[in-house]
């Protein structure tokens, strides 16, 4: 999220301030803003939730349908993620075809969920080679106050965690206009959430504001999960033109451990409770 117009002086001031160890909103470098979740915001969806990370606000929803499987995975359900960086959220976003930011966001989230094995695709098979469930995950930005990446990633997990399957009628081989009590089949232990680290001045900053992320040299998104009761990384994506040196990488991986111990339990609770 880089094309934010900012005067050079303001940029310089932010970098100086962060280099001196301070943030304008008084947070510590590795401090997340509070997460506030509202569940069941659409009665017509398998699940739809609202998530606020400070003033950054996103919606995420799950819809399901029945489709034919892909030729290379005849016994697995399918999954599609879209992200809309709607112009309501920020004057930086335009109406029309998704820009590179929205495309990258959707792809990073899609990959993170797909590759971690969070969704049990085999259980979404109705009839091998013929009928499988199709899962649509749609994310919409409502207000951008920085770090849409992490807000959207966590919102996506919660939407999936709250989703219930529609009723499938075996005789008509169609979905009834009704939800069942069965949750979307998930591998709970595969849960991993995205945390983006930004390099600003000489610091590594977590959960940046719009202004902070606009002046960062690079960002590194890390999907943080758990394996054998320890922190486990399941996906990464480096963004922007800056380069990561050994010291930065070391610092980020230490912070990753910290974020895991501070945040994993909270997010797990939000997703599954």
């Amino acid at each position: 999220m880089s094309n934010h117009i900012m005067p050079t002086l303001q940029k310089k001031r932010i970098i100086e301030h962060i280099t001196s160890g301070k943030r304008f909103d008084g947070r510590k470098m590795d401090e997340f803003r509070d997460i506030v979740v509202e569940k069941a915001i659409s009665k017509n969806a398998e699940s739809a939730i609202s998530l606020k990370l400070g003033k950054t606000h996103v919606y995420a929803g799950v819809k399901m349908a029945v489709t034919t499987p892909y030729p290379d995975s005849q016994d697995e359900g399918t999954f599609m993620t879209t992200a809309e960086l709607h112009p309501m959220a920020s004057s930086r976003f335009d109406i029309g075809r998704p820009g590179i930011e929205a495309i990258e966001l959707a792809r990073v989230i899609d990959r993170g969920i797909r590759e971690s094995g969070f969704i049990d695709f085999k259980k979404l098979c109705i009839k091998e080679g013929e009928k499988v469930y199709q899962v649509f995950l749609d994310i919409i930005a409502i207000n951008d106050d920085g770090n849409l990446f992490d807000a959207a990633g966590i919102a996506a997990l919660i939407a999936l965690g709250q989703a219930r399957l529609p009723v499938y009628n075996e005789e008509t081989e169609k979905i009834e206009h009704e939800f069942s009590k069965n949750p979307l089949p998930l591998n709970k232990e595969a849960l991993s959430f995205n945390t983006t680290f930004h390099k600003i001045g000489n610091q590594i900053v977590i959960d940046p504001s719009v202004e902070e992320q606009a002046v960062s040299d690079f960002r590194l998104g890390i999907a943080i999960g758990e394996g054998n009761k320890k922190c486990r990384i399941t996906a990464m994506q480096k963004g922007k033109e800056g380069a990561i040196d050994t010291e930065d990488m070391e610092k980020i991986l230490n912070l990753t451990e910290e974020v895991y111990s501070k945040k994993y339990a909270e997010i797990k609770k939000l997703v599954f409770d």
Partner: protein
Amino acid sequence: MAAKKVDSLYKKRSDGRKMDEIRPIAAKVGVVPSADGSAMFETGGTRAIAVVRGPRVLHPQNKRNPQKGILRVSYGMMPFSVWDRIRPGPSRRSEEISKVSEWALDAVVDLDAFPNTVVDVFIQIPQADAGTRVAGLNAAAMALAHAGIPMKEMVSAMAVGKADKTIIVDVDKDEEDFHDGEGATDIPMAITSRTKKITLLQLDGKISTEELKTAIEMGKKACGDVLEVQMKALKEANTEDKE
């Protein structure tokens, strides 16, 4: 005013409302902090969010009007707002609703003081149970007022309908799908607050001129109720701002 007694196949509303009774309304302004103005408007199971950004410089340049600012409305439903998922992005339906909503609001906004600019209004529907365009308009009018855009008067909107021969106010999804007898007729309308003029009017179905007159009268009354809720929400926001 109550509907006249007619011999209709539609005798009772599924949620127990009176024929001229609107669903519970909720409204709030300031729901999107980074915007110039924003509002949420809800009737029953239908909820709309509207955001105003502007007046701001209009691109592309050839769309600019050197005499006055222009109003641009974009309406859309979120993919998970209805039972059958909607593909994100504009559709023929959403483009048309955007335009009729734009006309409905353009009648009251005064952008003479802002030549070459645009005021963007974004309407989004997170949850739908019929009447999304009127809920969207109600939210949009509030968001424009919240943004301090000069307006000659407010706009309030409501969908009146007819199920078989019964005229009903604030049609929900079940009622929209009523197929017996004369079936369902849907008449979304928007009424200005002071001069009580109509700035949006559409109709789908079958109705006599007499019935339509009654429907419009009932719509005007319902819009009056909507207006009260809109004004209350705006006043509350005003007090909060001062604190």
